[in-house]
């Protein structure tokens, strides 16, 4: 029986056809954090897996596409299996800056949160701001940046998100937050910097049809989960400006 791998933290990156950026992001994370990097290759048709492995990441290759949340959940299950204490999720497309991770992690540990969202409301368009205000209204979640893929999860959040209950979530943002709130976990936000995607646009906001589908799915989800147990979250940390 080999000694179980004990990490303090694990960076989880879902990636689908991101061969242009994935290696740089993996190296960036390894440069600033003393943690392993797990890339979940969501059935890419390009060299994402080889690029990520060459950059020093552990790679899980899904046999067929599960989408961003399904891939991230594979990372959560891997983390649970390997007794990881903290999971940091970020996108493989280079819109999240690895230099921001230590700040986010520090904020997470300082506030004893179960999940800390790296929020960057400045990048949102007017249409998204309206959509987010609507989501705040129907979910009752006091979050400024719902779709940010840059998040830090603690052990209790990892356990909740690796469960069967989380397997039918279709989008990684609101469904996940509603589940965590239902479990009574503490959701926090910390300001961060992001840049526009270096390749391609947002998957969700790519066409009116997908926007509509996303809005309907999320509305149905919010209505279906109404009245979940909620815990008052501390004052959001929006007053702290990100550095650098």
């Amino acid at each position, binding site marked *: 029986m*080999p000694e179980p791998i004990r990490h303090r933290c694990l960076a989880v990156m879902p990636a689908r056809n991101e061969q242009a950026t994935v290696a740089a992001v993996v190296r960036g994370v390894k440069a600033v954090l003393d943690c392993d990097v797990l890339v*979940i290759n969501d059935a890419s048709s390009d060299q994402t897996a080889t690029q990520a492995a060459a950059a020093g990441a*552990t*790679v*899980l*290759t*899904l*046999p*067929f596409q*599960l989408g961003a949340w*399904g891939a991230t*959940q*594979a990372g959560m*299950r*891997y983390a649970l*299996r390997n007794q990881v204490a903290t999971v940091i999720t970020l996108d493989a497309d280079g819109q999240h800056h690895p230099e921001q991770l230590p700040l986010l992690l520090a904020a997470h540990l300082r506030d004893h949160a179960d999940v800390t969202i790296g929020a960057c409301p400045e990048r949102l368009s007017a249409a998204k701001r309206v959509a987010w205000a609507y989501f705040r209204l129907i979910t009752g979640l006091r979050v400024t940046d719902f779709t940010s893929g840059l998040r830090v999860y603690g052990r209790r959040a990892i356990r909740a998100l690796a469960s*069967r209950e989380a*397997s*039918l979530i279709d989008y990684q943002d609101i469904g996940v937050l509603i589940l965590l709130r239902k479990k009574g976990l503490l959701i926090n936000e910390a300001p961060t910097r992001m840049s526009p995607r270096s390749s391609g646009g947002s998957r969700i906001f790519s066409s009116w049809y997908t926007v509509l589908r996303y809005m309907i799915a999320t509305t149905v989800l919010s209505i279906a989960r109404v009245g979940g147990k909620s815990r008052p979250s501390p004052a959001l940390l929006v007053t702290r400006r990100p550095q650098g």
Partner: protein
Amino acid sequence: MSAQITAALLGLLLAGSILYLVRRDHLHGPYALWWLIIAAATLVLGFVPRTIDWLAHLSGVAYPPVLPIILGLSLILLRMLQLDIERSRQERQIRRLNQKLAILEEELTSLQNARLRTPKEPRGSSD
């Protein structure tokens, strides 16, 4: 009289197809039971259409011919609901299997790599 022959023929055809499919093992467990009940019902209704009148009288439906339509539609709706529940359950299982397969594959690869690096294993291949 000819309408009754049509009804009996349709019932016989449906029941026959279902029986054939169940016997050929194309329908699994609980589905086979459900469809056998449907086959029996169509046979009864096809050969004894008076059952409808009797059922309509019992349930207070004034116009008996709508009774099989209402019953049929309700059963179809129920069945579709049950199918979607089943589909959701399978979707969850498939997603989790997919993830577990990826995790186990990674563990297998790293175990194999670890073994290649330590050549003291007696039954390891010679290459």
